[in-house]
Each structure stands twice: as structure tokens, then as C-alpha cells.
């Protein structure tokens, strides 16, 4: 067990190092042009540009810059190019909307995805299954930001039922928090509900044709018990790991678009705005953070999987 954990940890560190290197290269090295020029502004004199260059270390060799930047990241002292604010503070400030969005949506899509998937599987081939499959397919095919914009337009502007974007902290006004998050949650969840419903449907159908389910029926168990205790218990195991990975992906990716549409000022939107400004440090830190989250969650999910499936435990 210890050996396994140690190896896993080493692997994770290696991946994180590679990611930090890659991120750094992408942002510092590839972009055309001189970061010092960009930072100094359009009206700067060459001398001012040179000052900026020296102050920020752009004149030092690449690996030196990398190490310094990484040092600052781990120290918590990274400062944005264009705004002179501490990046990490800003990220912490932007976390609540992102977490609210990801967690809320995660719960919603897990619940409905599983529900629809099971219903679909049980009534396989019949009307309910077909309808749910259609709904799922349409859901998967609709970009989240399109759906978000539509919801905003119809429920926000036309019907004036829900607020027009922005974020209200849970602690300040729970109801406000809820009404502000409702449409973003829906927009984000729909595609995932579709995916999960189909994955679960497929898993459940596969499991139902397994030999041990036949044995369960041969034992004279009620259909409900067979379904819950044998079929579902086994079909849901892969869903756990899927959810963990998707959650991490949402925090890192899917959230950006929705945050932009609904103006939630979360981490994703912060990163998007920084990119538009060609402001590198925030993007660097956010990317690292998210990659970290993905890798860590990946390991957590693996461990959870082993806890749920005894066959995996012993294969170690």
C-alpha cells in the first residue's frame, strides 16, 4: 500500500512539473512580441521598456525566469503584469462563484443523469427510453453558452423571473444566491446530464445481462432488490470516477464560458479576462491550480474506486 502511494505521488509530481513547464513555455516563450514592450505600454520610451525588462526579469535566461516564477507561485507572491495586484489573492476572491457553480451543477447533473439513465435502462426500447434518449442527445449537442444565453434572454429579460447575471454570496443572501445560480447551473448541467444518462443506461444494460444478475433472480429476489442491490451498485462504480474527473474539468474549463455569459466573476472569468489582456501571471497560476486539482482528484477517484470495487484492491 505504501509503495503504491509513493509511486502514485511521484507520478503526480512528475506530471505537475511537466505541466508547470509547459504552461510557462506556452505563456512566456511562444507568444510573439516582447512582454516588456506589452507591459510598458504603447507610449513608453526604449529606456522605460528596458527598465520594465530588468524589473520583471525578462532579460534573464529562460530557465532562470521559470525558476523565479515558480518560486513566486509557491510563495504566493505572484503579481499580475497589468494590474499590480497579487494574483493569488485575486484568485481566492474569485473562488466562491466558481465553487458554487461547479458544486451545484455537479450535484444536479449527477442526480438527474443517474435518474434518467436508470429510467431509460429499465424501460429500454419503450417510449420513455426513447424520449429520454432524444432529450439526452439534444442536451449533448447544445453548447452550454448558447443555452445559457437563451435562458438569460427568456427568463431574465423577457419574463424577468430571474436576475440578469452577477453573483451574490451565499452567506449574504441565500435566496439571492440561489436565484442567481439557477440559470448557470442549468446551462452547465444539461450537457452532462445527457452524457451521464447515456453512460449509465449503457452500464446498467450491460450489468443486467451479467451472469450474477441471473443468479440473483434465480435466488428468488424481488426485481427491485435485484435492481438496487446488484445492478445499480455495480453500474454506479464507474460513474464515481467519471464524476470526479468531470468536476475537475468543469472547474478548469467549462466554468469559464458560463461565468462569462452570466458575469459571475469567478476564477474562470478572471483567467479569460487576463488572457484577453495578455496578462500572463494570473493565467499561469490558474492553469497550474486547475491542473493540480485534476491530478489530485484523479488520484482521489482512483482510491475511491478501489474502495468500492474489491477486485481492484487486491490487484495492487
Amino acid at each position, binding site marked *: 500500500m505504501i*509503495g503504491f502511494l509513493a509511486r502514485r505521488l511521484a507520478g503526480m509530481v512528475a506530471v505537475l512539473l511537466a505541466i508547470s513547464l509547459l504552461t510557462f513555455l506556452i505563456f512566456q516563450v511562444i507568444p510573439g512580441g516582447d512582454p516588456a514592450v506589452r507591459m510598458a505600454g504603447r507610449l513608453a520610451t526604449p529606456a522605460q521598456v528596458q527598465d520594465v525588462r530588468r524589473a520583471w526579469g525578462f532579460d534573464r535566461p529562460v530557465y532562470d525566469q521559470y525558476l523565479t516564477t515558480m518560486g513566486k507561485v509557491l510563495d504566493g507572491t505572484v503579481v499580475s503584469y497589468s494590474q499590480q495586484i497579487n494574483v493569488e489573492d485575486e484568485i481566492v476572491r474569485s473562488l466562491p462563484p466558481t465553487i458554487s457553480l461547479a458544486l451545484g451543477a455537479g450535484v444536479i447533473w449527477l442526480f438527474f443523469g443517474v435518474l434518467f439513465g436508470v429510467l431509460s435502462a429499465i424501460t429500454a426500447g419503450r417510449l420513455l427510453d426513447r424520449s429520454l434518449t432524444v432529450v439526452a442527445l439534444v442536451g449533448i449537442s447544445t453548447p452550454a453558452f448558447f443555452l445559457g444565453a437563451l435562458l438569460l434572454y427568456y427568463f431574465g429579460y423577457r419574463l424577468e423571473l430571474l436576475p440578469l447575471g452577477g453573483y451574490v454570496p451565499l452567506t449574504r443572501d441565500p435566496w439571492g444566491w440561489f436565484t442567481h445560480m439557477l440559470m448557470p447551473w442549468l446551462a452547465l448541467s444539461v450537457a452532462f446530464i445527457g452524457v451521464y444518462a447515456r453512460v449509465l443506461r449503457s452500464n446498467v444494460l450491460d450489468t443486467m445481462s*451479467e*451472469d*450474477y444478475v*441471473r*443468479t*440473483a*433472480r*434465480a*435466488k*428468488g*429476489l*424481488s*426485481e427491485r*432488490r435485484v435492481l438496487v*442491490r*446488484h445492478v445499480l*451498485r*455495480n453500474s454506479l*462504480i464507474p460513474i464515481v470516477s467519471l464524476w470526479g474527473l468531470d468536476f475537475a474539468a468543469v472547474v478548469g474549463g467549462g466554468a469559464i464560458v458560463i461565468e462569462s455569459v452570466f458575469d459571475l466573476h469567478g476564477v474562470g472569468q478572471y483567467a479569460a479576462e487576463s488572457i484577453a489582456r495578455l496578462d500572463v501571471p494570473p493565467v499561469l497560476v490558474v492553469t497550474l491550480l486547475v491542473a493540480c486539482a485534476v491530478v489530485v482528484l484523479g488520484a482521489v477517484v482512483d482510491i475511491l474506486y478501489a474502495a*468500492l*470495487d*474489491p*477486485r481492484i484492491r*487486491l490487484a495492487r
Partner: protein
Amino acid sequence: MSLLEVANLGVSFATEAGAVRAVDGASFALSRGEVLALVGESGSGKSTIGLTLMGLTRRLGARTSGAATLEGQDLLGAGERELRSLRGNRMAMVFQDPISSLNPVQRVGWQISEQIRAHQPLVGGAQALERAVELMDRAGIANARSRVRAYPHELSGGMRQRVMIAMALSCEPGLLIADEPTTALDVTTQAQILAQLRELRERTEMGILFITHDLGVVADIADRILVMRAGQLVEQGNAEEILHAPQHPYTQSLLAAYAPRPLRAPRTTGAPLLQTQELSVAFRAGRRAQVQALDGVSLTLQEGETLGVVGESGAGKSTLIRCLVRLTDPTSGTIHFRGQDITKARGRQLASVRRELQMVFQDSHASLNPRRRVEWILAGGLRLREVPRAQWRGRAGELLERVGLRVEHLDRFPHELSGGERQRVGIARALSCDPRALVLDEPVSSLDATVRAQVLDLLARLQAEAGLSYLLVSHDLMVVRGVSDRVAVMRNGEVVEVGATEELFSSPQHEYTRTLLASCLKLPGQVRSAV
């Protein structure tokens, strides 16, 4: 009143190609305390009968006709709820493959107690578990109390099957349907399980419907026999009568297929062709454990002879073969082929050895590329012999005819061939390199009994025609006995005994060989012709 009465049972399924009749008008009865064996080859419909009686074919869209009653209660027309109260309670079923028939993520004790509580809801959890321990103990599982918390994959095949039996018996059913319960087990384990079932029958007056393809098992345990073929019941009667004086031509051919092959006449064989000396293979299993798959195996295959290697699972037979054909490297020891040391052969040397030493695989289904036609499969060997491309089709056709197939088969895919035909293609493929020796890994194990004899005849003919040498590995003693000049017995990676077939079978030296021979189920005819 009989325990189970079946009258004119018919079962059909709707498939892509139309309705298929799996069972066509079967009628029989089973009394208490009786073991009725339902015998047939694959596709005969015997399993379908068992599943239909339990009502497990309803979900597969089966349409039934005729009647089946358990102690007077209608089985075919019963509603789901009625059927559920019967299943596991008054009638129970044991399936063939315990690894897939037990829920892999639940402990075995829990699975047994689940059945108890389903039918006796007043029994508490702890009490049910106690009962499970008792049942497992009576089923012959040692350390039942600790084993009760095990997961299925932590137990051996034999133990898993005992768990299934314990589970089936938990509510003391009057009827037990056993569908190939020992087919996936070792010979020695099989003998134990059968003994247990016999004891059960005596103790409880339970009626057992025993479904199997193996006549040896039938001879061992059955009171009465039903013979099925292509969905129809072709003969039924007392075990004695049927085994000694079968009436129906199909039954006769079935028994003939089980008849022991005559021993080979002693023949002169040539110089040692393939030799291993102190061959050992050790695997790392897990972090620190080492598994000794082969331990100092020294064997000689002489030119022109057939050496049979016999052993149960885990004996090391597969590892031995893989070493011989150089799919695996041995940890120590040497292999010599025609005097040359090929233990670490590579490149050109290995290529030339490969041309002379080929392999026939066990599972014809998996050993032929499912996405390739027969012609392409055979062309592989021809290409290596540097036969010009233009001649491939012709030569491939010739190969097929040598193994008893037709030229039309060249354009078929493996899934369009029967098991026996696929195995012939496998043999043709091995011959396509024009080898001197063949290593055969369980070449007939996955075939029906009637087909088995044909393939073994084919192998004998090919050997005579081309002067081939065979090293044939099998778990089936009777197969080995009928084709080998000499036999080696393996156990736990070691060779425990080697000798001429006749001597080894009539006066085995090693205790393990004796146990193995004793566990081997013999048909009445076989007992007599032991030599």
C-alpha cells in the same frame, strides 16, 4: 406424484434471422431422490430447459408451449410473483461458471444470507449469516467462518462452486437444477463435488436435474438419462440401459465418441528432437511473492513420437509450451532442438527454429484473427516460407484439403466456421510452415465429443503421413491416453512421472498419478478396457 413433470415442452426465441426453436416437444418426469441427467452437445437445448423451468428465459423473449409443473404447481404459466416465491425456495439452480455467477463486489456470506432472508423475512441478519456459515461448512468449505467474509475472486474455482451449491441449498429446495456445475473445474475437484451431490441426494431426498455434456460425469452420478439433440429428446431411460445398450443412433454415436481410443501400438522412434533440461520459470507476482511456474522440468521428445503432457490447472503446462515456442524466456535451464541450444535464440536462429516447430492452440475461437479470412490466416505461414504470392491461394487450398476441409472455406471468416472446422484451420496454419514438430495446447478440449474423435484421427493421420512429432498437452487423461506413445505427468511446475503410456496407466508409480487416474471418470466400457 413426481416432483417435476414436463409435457411436450417447446421453447422458441425470436432472433434477427427469425424464430428459432431451442426446445421442441420434450417430455419427462423427475422423482424425489432421483438424479436425472440431461445430456447433449452444445446447442442441443439442454441448458434452455433448465433456464425455462426456472422462468429465467422470460426476459430473453422466449415463447413457451406445453406444460411443466413442480409438485403440481404450474411453472410456465405462473405469474412473476409466484415464480419468485418458488425460485431459490422450492427449486434452485447452480450455474456453470461460478466466477461470473457470483456478484463480484459482495461478500459470499452476504450473498447466501440474502437468499435466506428473501424467503424467510423473519430471520434476522446475524442469524442468516450464521446459517450461511453452517451451509458453507456442510458444502465442504474449510474455515467456513472466516471464508464467509471473502469475496468471490478470493476463492478458488472449486470453493466458489461450493458456495453456489451452499447458496442454492440454503432454503432446502425440493428440486435442484445443476447446469454444467463441474465443467469449469479440475478433475480432482470435480470428483469431490460430485461425491457431495451424491451424498446430498441420499440425505435429503432432493431431486436433481443434472445438465451436462460430459458422459463421464453422467456415468458417475445419474439414475436416469435424457439424451437431447437439436432441441429434441431422442432417448431416455435408466442410466444402466442407456450406457450399455443405447437404442437411438445419436446416443450410440455419442457413446462411441467416449469410447477409449485404442492404445497406440509401440513404435520405433528416432533421435531426441526436442529436449529440455532443468527448465525453470519464475514469475514475480505482486511485490515480493515469486511464483515458480516451472521447476526443473526435463523432458525429451523423440522424433516421430507423441509425448503427452498431463496435469491439472496450475501444473505449468501452459508455461512449458510458451517456453518451448519461445514466447516466454525461461529463468534457468536449457532447451535443445535438433541438438542446438535454442534457449536464448534470437533473430535468424529463432526464425529457422520457428519454421520447424509450430503450435496448435486451444481455443480456436481466440486463436484465429476474427477479422481475417481463412486464406489470409494460412498465407502467413506461406509467406514465411517465401512461397511466391501467386501460389498462395493454391497452396492454402491444398492445406485445407489435407486437414479435411474444402477450398470454399478459404473465403470464410472464423465466426462462419464451427468449432471443429476452426480447429482444423488452426492445424492447417501450423502446417503451413512445413514443420517437423508440433506443440499442441489442449487441441480438443473446447470441442464436442463427437468432433473430438475426428480431430484426433486427423492428427494421427497427419503424423503418419508427414512423420511429425507431437508434444501434446492436455488436462484430459483419456485424450492423452489415446494418442500418446509416452506420457509425462505434471504438478505444481514439476514432472512427477514419465513413462510409456501403457505402463503409466496400468501401474502408475507416483501417488499423484494414482489420484489423478482415480478421479478420472470412466464409462462402464472404459473400466473394463483399462489396458
